[in-house]
């Protein structure tokens, strides 16, 4: 009789914490998953046919050659010093326009570096000239 009684005992897995586990999993995946977001540098191109005369005093020419060397107002500047130089020019003249001109076979990365440096100096007026 005793053995029979024992056999009748049902083995159940407690399911009360099931929803807790589900929530834990949900929270875990919510925290872990990152939606790949697009990041980049915003830039506004000048409109078509908008060529106007600017006081030459307000223009800094930034030339980037194929080797990635940078010339700012006819003096060579190390790429990482562009930001400092641009800040200096901006403090002298807040209306300064930076005109970036690249060579036909300048690498895109070098161009992005220059734009990046100018943006780091909080230069808002950046224009791009056609390639040489």
């Amino acid at each position, binding site marked *: 009789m005793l053995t029979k009684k024992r056999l009748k005992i049902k083995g159940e897995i407690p*399911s009360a914490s*099931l*929803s807790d586990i*589900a929530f834990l999993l949900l929270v875990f995946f919510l925290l872990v998953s990152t939606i*790949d*977001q*697009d*990041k*980049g*540098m*915003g*830039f*506004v*191109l*000048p*409109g*078509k046919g908008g060529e106007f005369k600017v006081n030459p005093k307000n223009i800094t020419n930034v030339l*980037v050659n194929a080797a990635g060397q940078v010339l700012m107002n006819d003096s060579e500047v190390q790429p990482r010093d562009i930001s400092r130089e641009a800040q200096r020019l901006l403090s002298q003249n807040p209306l300064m326009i930076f005109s970036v001109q*690249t*060579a*036909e*076979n*300048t*690498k*895109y*990365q070098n*161009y*992005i*570096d220059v*734009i*990046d440096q100018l*943006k*780091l100096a909080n230069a808002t007026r950046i224009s*791009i000239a*056609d*390639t040489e």
Partner: protein
Amino acid sequence: MAIKKKTKVKAEIPTSSMPDIIFMLLIFFMMTTVMREFEGLKVLLPQARKIEKVETKRHVAYIFVGRDGVISVDDKLIQVDDVRKVMYSKRVANPQLIVSLRADRNVMMGLISRIHNELREADALRLNYSATTAAY
């Protein structure tokens, strides 16, 4: 007495199977959702420090420029001269268009400059140079 007994009967919806149902739903949606495979060309984006997130994906159109100078828009390879046409139609459809330029870091600037000019012709002026975060 008999009537009283009847009113005591409680009507309850069994809730013990609710987690099962929720799991079923979860699994169903997990199975049916397809993660959007990243379309476009394989590009090695340039690195930059001053980058910001693109606020909305809704207004963004992508131009891929591969390392060897191929241009792809909407999974179609196009010539530089066609960028204007494609982008103009996009611009007409969505005036708030932001063009995200996903160009390889080794692309020559001559091509990028031509794309710039095409975009200016198409009046799609809001541009975003896609880049990855550079280590300091």
